[in-house]
């Protein structure tokens, strides 16, 4: 086995030092153009998401000022013109829709998500005080998921047909577990049964373990499916054979060579994972009585407090789009194999 065959990519993209130098400036420009195009596309998606959010607020049936007052009072009743005029004034409801729309977009750009119907406060204040808790949960869950996935795949992938089949069955089953059921099982076993972790999550470090695991286990199963395929493919690569010939042990090969190749699809899923854990937080926070934007969202949906609902939904969409954009940009910059347009 020749050393060149150990990685096709360097052979394909770098024919020699001279040719590489000639290509480099052109590639730099192509990267810049690709990046600008991707950022532009992401901005279009965000503008679209904001537009959907705006029209969702208009879609509430009935007169909006009356609806807002009813939501505040928690009951439907006839309103005097003075009451309505005050609400119309506060939310600018008498302006033409297009003006309201532009005001809304202008507000979003300057970080103003509107005012809650129910809480008389800016939506940013309502979200802001809860966001930290949910982000902590989300990031902890992603870290747990990576840990579980890496250990599980390294232990079971490419180890004979039986273990491999068992491993991938576990991947599929865990990936499909609904959060509400998994959360309750974990709560019953480790909270109520074994008393290892508190039942009510609160803000203590021990309290985050069960909620984070609830989000992490299905995520780990999902990532493991694609990582496992890549892992088993990498085990057959010539560079693995050459490492074996150099006398490297099985564990060394798996951890130092194969794993690095195999986790690439999971890195690609990072943006999606962030979106999935943020939306999964809605259910998990409800199970573990944990504060966060998920529980704010559920009560806002119940109360039809649309500025809060659209605020949270738009925020998650922004995070999702931004995370995907970052993953995309990082790939474009670091991976010379990607074709640039």
């Amino acid at each position: 086995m020749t050393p060149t065959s150990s990685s096709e990519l360097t052979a394909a993209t770098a024919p020699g030092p001279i040719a590489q130098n000639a290509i480099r400036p052109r590639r730099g420009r192509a990267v810049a153009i690709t990046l600008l195009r991707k950022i532009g596309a992401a901005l279009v998606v965000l503008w679209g998401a904001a537009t959907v959010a705006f029209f969702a607020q208009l879609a509430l049936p009935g007169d909006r000022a009356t609806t807002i007052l009813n939501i505040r009072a928690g009951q439907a009743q006839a309103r005097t013109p003075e009451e309505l005029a005050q609400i119309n004034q506060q939310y600018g409801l008498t302006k033409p829709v297009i003006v309201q729309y532009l005001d809304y977009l202008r507000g979003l750009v300057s970080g103003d998500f509107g005012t809650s119907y129910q809480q008389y406060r800016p939506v940013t204040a309502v979200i802001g005080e809860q966001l930290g808790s949910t982000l902590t949960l989300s990031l902890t869950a992603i870290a747990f998921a990576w840990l579980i996935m890496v250990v599980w795949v390294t232990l079971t992938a490419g180890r004979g047909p039986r273990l491999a089949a068992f491993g991938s069955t576990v991947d599929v089953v865990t990936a499909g577990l609904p959060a509400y059921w998994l959360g309750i099982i974990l709560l019953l076993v480790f909270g109520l049964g074994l008393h290892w972790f508190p039942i009510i999550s609160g803000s203590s470090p021990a309290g985050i373990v069960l909620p984070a695991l609830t989000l992490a286990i299905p995520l780990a199963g999902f990532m493991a499916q694609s990582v496992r395929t890549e892992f088993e493919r990498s085990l057959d690569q010539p560079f693995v054979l050459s490492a074996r010939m150099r006398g490297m042990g099985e564990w060394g090969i798996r951890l130092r060579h194969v794993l690095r190749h195999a986790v690439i699809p999971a890195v690609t899923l990072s943006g999606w994972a962030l979106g999935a854990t943020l939306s999964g937080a809605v259910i998990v926070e409800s199970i573990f009585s944990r504060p966060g934007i998920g529980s704010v969202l559920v009560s806002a949906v119940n109360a039809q407090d649309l500025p809060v609902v659209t605020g949270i939904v738009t925020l998650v969409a922004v995070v999702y789009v931004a995370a995907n954009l970052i993953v995309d940009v990082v790939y474009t910059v670091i991976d010379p194999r990607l074709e640039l347009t």
Partner: protein
Amino acid sequence: MTALGTPPSPAAAPVRPTLATRLGRVPWGLVLAVAFAVLLLVAVIAPQALTTHLPTAIDYQAALQQPSLAHPFGTDESGRDLYTRVIWGARDSLTIGLGAAAVSVGLALVLGTLAALGVKPVAVVIDRFVEILFAFPALLLALLLIAIAGPSAATQVFAVGIGTAPGYARMIRGQILGARNSGYVEAATALGHSRWRILRAHILPNALRPLVAVFALSIGQSIVWASSLSFLGLGVAPPASEWGALLDAGRQYLTTAWWLVVIPGLVIVAVALAATTIGRHIQARLEKGERS
């Protein structure tokens, strides 16, 4: 005689498979999934055939009993038999799941086809629109719709259907584009077939065949999403015994009656798993058929 030169002995060729290898070859997962699907179908059509109690029969003497022979899934706080409630709830859960899957795949079909084959400006606009909707996680899109329309069974169907549609729409668009750029379409174009004929005879059948598998998969997904909404108290409300609503109602007795939550949850997991198994099997069969 060298080992290489030995011809395979004719007697050894048709080895009769032993019972063990034959049993090992049966796709047990699939058999279980299909059997479970048949059971569910019976529960939907004639729940009284599978149960001895009534789902609303209250018996306070028997409140919060553990699973036993008389009550295989235990009883709830009003002494209603949980097994009966789960069986009768199958109709609600599966109707909502099927409805949502139909809305989802139907909408995805329209959006995906237009995005792939529509005239330029329409296709681009639809493509962007799908991309925008895809930026919202399914559950959040569903919650947004419920906030506007208020919680009910119908909202639940449309919320879940619309929430999950963007992902499928992207998939269908990819399938159609893949078929359009294939060799057989190029060949048909070279033969001078009309655009419409190529579309009808080549692109759509090939691109849409995987849809059967997608539909099976999306039924399982839809049931899970729909029950998530009921679990949050934003779907069908009790006394209906839709499975998510059963879970939500059982939550307050978690410390004393684990079965009220664990068993309905297990049923939902089993349904989702069965739908996935059947869907994947269909997918594998279709792919095999394409290759041969």
